[in-house]
């Protein structure tokens, strides 16, 4: 499993909610899906640690849980940051150097595309064409669109969200 760099920061409160959830569904047939869905609502994602708690408390083997988590598109093993960054790699942006932008963002934050910073503040994704080709290259940070940027602009933009 892709082990996230973000250390698991689950609180005792979250764990208590998870245990309560597991107790509620444990006796029912087909309890795993509702438990995973509820767990993802509590934690925002389903890392190894959460899967382990579920396994320990239900007796369902880890490999079974992992198999289910990785099958469904809605379940994620890596957290999204509080601030999500999306760098467009569509053709127009790519030709205008968005690959270099992505690299710079990865450098600045110390993580790769698809990952989240250790403090849970930022996560990076690439996307394919947000339809703002006139502003190429485009990067979306926290929902705001930044266009016509160069790698040198990246540190300043990120500083606004730190």
């Amino acid at each position, binding site marked *: 499993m892709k082990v996230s760099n973000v250390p698991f920061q689950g609180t005792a409160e979250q764990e208590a909610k998870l245990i309560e959830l597991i107790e509620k569904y444990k006796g029912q047939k087909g309890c795993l899906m509702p438990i995973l869905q509820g767990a993802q609502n509590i934690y925002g994602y389903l890392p190894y640690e959460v899967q382990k708690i579920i396994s320990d408390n239900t007796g369902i083997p880890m490999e079974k849980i992992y198999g289910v988590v990785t*099958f469904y598109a809605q379940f994620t093993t890596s957290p999204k940051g509080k601030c999500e960054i999306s760098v467009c790699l569509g053709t127009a942006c790519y030709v205008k150097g968005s690959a270099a932008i992505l690299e710079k963002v990865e450098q600045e934050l110390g993580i790769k595309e698809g990952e989240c910073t250790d403090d849970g503040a930022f996560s990076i994704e690439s996307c394919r064409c947000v339809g703002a080709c006139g502003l190429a290259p485009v990067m979306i940070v926290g929902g705001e669109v930044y266009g016509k940027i160069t790698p040198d602009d990246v540190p300043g933009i990120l500083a606004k969200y730190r």
Partner: protein
Amino acid sequence: MKTIQDLIEIKNQKGAQIGIRFGGDAEAEKTYILCCAGTGCTSSHSGDLMDNFRKLAEESGMTDKIEIIPTGCQGLCAKGPVVVVYPGNVHYQLVTPDMAQRIWDEHIVGGTPVADFLMKEETAEGEDIPFEESSFYNDQLRLALRNCGKIDPENIDEYIAREGYQAIGKAINEMTPDEVIQVMIDSELRGRGGAGFPTGKKWLFASGNRGEVQKYVCCNADEGDPGAFMDRSILEGDPHSVIEAMSIAGYAIGANQGYIYVRAEYPIAIERLEIALKQAREYGVLGKNILGSDFDFDIDLRLGAGAFVCGEETALMTSIEGNRGEPHPRPPFPAVKGLFQSPTILNNVETYANIPQIIIKGADWFKSSGSETSKGTKVFALGGKINNTGLVEVPMGATLRHVVEDIGGGVPNGKKFKAAQTGGPSGGCIPADYYDIPMDYESLSSIGCMMGSGGLIVLDEDDCMVDIAKFFLGFTVSESCGKCTPCRIGTKRMLEILEKISEGKGTMEDLDKLEDLAKYIKANSLCGLGQTAPNPVLATINFFRDEYIAHIKEKRCPAGVCKELLSFTIDADKCKGCTLCARNCPAGAISGEVRSAHVIDNDKCIKCGVCMENCKFGAIYKK
């Protein structure tokens, strides 16, 4: 806990007032403001709109004379948010929250509807006709949607006022389980999820050994076809019809437990179901001893998690069991060995929505509409290049032309109808040559198409059929569960060939390869997803072969869609040399002096289209 007598009393009390919304002529005690609270209109702030109406009612001290009622989908989503006022049956369109004031002052208080806001339809000649005169309003037959858009889905009393829960009462008190199944068989109701299997037969297969084995009744509310929202609207607008039908099914086959598997992407539908289930239990029409009888039946919700394949029967059941959503070979069929290895029936939402009325009114009533082989109606979700995008219900056998041109208002912007895509990623496309084909199961399958679940996407002359096939195949490739080789690998190979063709690198042998692969994948895939994935490709090759050939032999996309085959050109006569295009071009592909005609270097051009968007003189065209 209610008895049948209690239900009848509620119906009598509320019935007359609800009847006003259905053309009844009782004297209205109040004014009813119905606001669509389906997902579409809610996203367009119909919630805020209703709050504004409520505030206005409070401020004017008229809360006992006005009722503001959230409803399910009214149908004409293109004109949403929709508001309907009774008495008077006045339809308003595109109602934003700030429009509430004028409607309140001029209509609710003043008595005169606001002419500017009234719903209207534009004819082909460019005139406006009142909505009440339109085909959309007059030509539908709303059976599955009979309550949708008219009642508050969060108020069980309104459902009861519409004969709600009378059907389960009749079944328990006046019919044997076998008689219920016989009515379903006689009605000739066919599954509305796409396959059209006779519902009565399905129940019959699961009906053996009643009371001796655990059995299950499931509802397929996964509705994964892109462009389909029939089931969502029924769940949001009339959830009790599904709940009641499931308990009828449970009574018929001898099951006490039901599951509704609803996709997680439908949060409003989930909320409405949870409310409806709670209210049904409180009234004793769900749970132990339904309506005081010894029949128990309860329903649990199970949410999907983003897997299209879980709309397939066996995958859905294994997902409920807590597994990866991978289908199983059949036989054994679920009626014999399904959920948790027990006899199970799975029906679609729209199928269930039809059932309570069939029990109350009888099989002959249901058979009085529809065509020879396909009785009843079909709900279609109209989308794509069509004026009246939204939800419609017509008798089976209505022609495609009638649905698209009359009810749907035709193709906008003067464009020509090219094809109607039905059946989602499993379906085919009905070309213009078959515009007058009746929409029923047999007619459509006779031309290699299918009814599908009801998604109907209209395509016009600007849509490329190769691109459409590629779009659907891309979808099925990413949604394939991966269990069987023909689907996992075969569809990917087909997609690669389509990509080659759309990039101008295809050969005529590729067409043969596509057809070969398609045959193999259809014959050998484990489940319906793989078996039908090649359908959009086969249908488009069948009806639009010349488009494929143009892509291959001429490296040309006739519809002007496939980017690699396009070239953008500046018309020197129209170009003013303003340099706007050159300055915005991300690839630096445009050159020219100020005030002289500019030129695009097609080798550098990446076909993003920014130049064409920016040109104020319409001097740039693509072909």
